[in-house]
């Protein structure tokens, strides 16, 4: 009787039983979800080397018996917190690097205070990054430093590398770094110079509020928040799913404000005039042309990145002056490229094999 439908009675009973169990689990776990906080993030042991305003420099305690000669400085994106690269043990990029024998430092950002609204691009590129590099050199006793920049941290690292062309940066790794801002089509439309009065906005609010930054990210995929909440409810019986959801959701909504003048420069020089791509970018009066970068460079981009589409990132490798350069396109999105199960099997091993031989 069941044959025509291709379903047997036993399998239906099994399915119903499993769904009933899941429904019960959902109710129990749902209450648990509301009454507990998520996993503790960013807990790899570290020392704070320096704190100055919005700038935090950490040194992670080495765990390997011997480490590579060249230390690594990670420059985080200014819109988000660095703990995306240090989730929980087993899913932490920092922990992975430490176990593979790297000496790891991170330049992470705190929310700029209202009185820091005058921080501009030159503060980030000509002061914060060089200051951190100097401190890494002092702390490690090594002159060479490899730099890893994630998203806009990659843009800052590129600007730094193109201005400080004589070192001490030894290698540069960029993750999902845009250089052609025309190709960030929606952001470009949101900030259309005919309608977006950036000066009026910043004069009114001081620093760019995190809520506006978060909304503009969420507008790129307006249905995804609701869909992910439905998915959470479907999978709330699954502890691993819930843990992962909480980690990524917490990070994604933990957006930082951007210093007012810095945001003005991003809008005018990058979004409006596309100066980095057009070789017309300068910071504090110093030309920042990508062709000035001659160090080995690896650029990792994600196939399905909705924040930095491939078209916005693809010219980086052709425009830098390095001879030792490589672009890798990996499966994943803007965040799953660097964190989570996808990153563990794709990006991290690739980075280790590329950087290891350039770190001696």
């Amino acid at each position, binding site marked *: 009787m069941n044959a025509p439908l291709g379903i047997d009675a036993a399998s239906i009973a099994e399915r119903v039983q499993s769904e009933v169990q899941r429904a019960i689990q959902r109710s129990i776990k749902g209450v648990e979800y509301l009454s507990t906080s998520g996993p503790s993030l960013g807990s790899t042991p570290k020392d704070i080397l320096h704190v100055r305003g919005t700038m935090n420099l950490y040194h992670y305690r*080495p765990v390997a018996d011997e*480490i590579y000669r060249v230390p690594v400085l990670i420059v985080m994106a200014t819109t988000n917190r660095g703990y995306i690269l240090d989730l929980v043990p087993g899913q932490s990029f920092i922990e992975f690097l430490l176990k593979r024998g790297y000496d790891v430092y991170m330049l992470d950002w705190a929310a700029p205070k209202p009185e820091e609204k005058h921080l501009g691009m030159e503060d980030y590129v000509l002061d914060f990054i060089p200051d951190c590099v100097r401190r890494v050199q002092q702390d490690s006793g*090594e002159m060479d430093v490899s730099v890893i920049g994630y998203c806009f941290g990659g843009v800052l690292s590129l600007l730094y590398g193109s201005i400080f062309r004589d070192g001490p940066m030894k290698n540069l790794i960029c993750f999902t770094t845009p250089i052609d801002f025309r190709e960030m089509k929606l952001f470009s*439309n949101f900030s259309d110079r005919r309608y977006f009065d950036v000066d009026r906005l910043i004069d009114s609010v001081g620093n760019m509020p995190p809520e506006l930054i978060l909304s503009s990210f969420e507008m790129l995929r*307006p249905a995804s928040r609701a869909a992910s909440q439905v998915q959470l409810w479907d999978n709330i019986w699954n502890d691993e799913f819930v843990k992962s959801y909480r980690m990524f959701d917490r990070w994604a909504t933990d957006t930082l404000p951007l210093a007012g003048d810095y945001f003005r420069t991003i809008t005018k020089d990058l979004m409006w005039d596309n100066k980095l791509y057009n070789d017309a970018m300068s910071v504090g009066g110093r030309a920042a042309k990508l062709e000035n970068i001659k160090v080995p460079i690896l650029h990792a981009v994600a196939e399905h990145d909705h924040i930095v589409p491939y078209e916005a990132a693809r010219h980086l490798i052709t425009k830098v002056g390095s001879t030792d350069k490589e672009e890798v396109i990996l499966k994943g999105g803007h965040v799953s490229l660097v964190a989570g199960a996808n990153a563990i099997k794709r990006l991290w091993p690739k980075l280790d094999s590329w950087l290891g*031989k350039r770190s001696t």
Partner: protein
Amino acid sequence: MADKGNDPAVIWQTMIGEMEKGFNSFANQAMGTPEFSRLMNQAGGFAAGAQKQLGELMERYLVSMNLPSRSQLVGMAERLQSIESQLNEIRALLNQMNRSASNAESPAAAKPRPPRTKRPPGEKEQK
């Protein structure tokens, strides 16, 4: 087992996924137009202007009521943050001093930094 095509849970998840993709793609098309940008920025501009004016008005009102204004509270928060960061720096310094002291007292107990002699795995195998 029922095949996946008949599984209501799979059908539901696929439907949600497709709806999400469809709506995102539709919304992205709409948001890519100059008209959307004009309307969004007009609304945003009004909101920012109104927020500024309201803020100034509230500030004057709170001063007249002898109550702390938002900017005064933000000022206090900034001072607290500054005290917190100074405490962090002091803590970092104390940790450093503690490590130096324990190095001096018992060098064996202190954990020195590992040597910077690591070679990539491929190179080791070749040697």
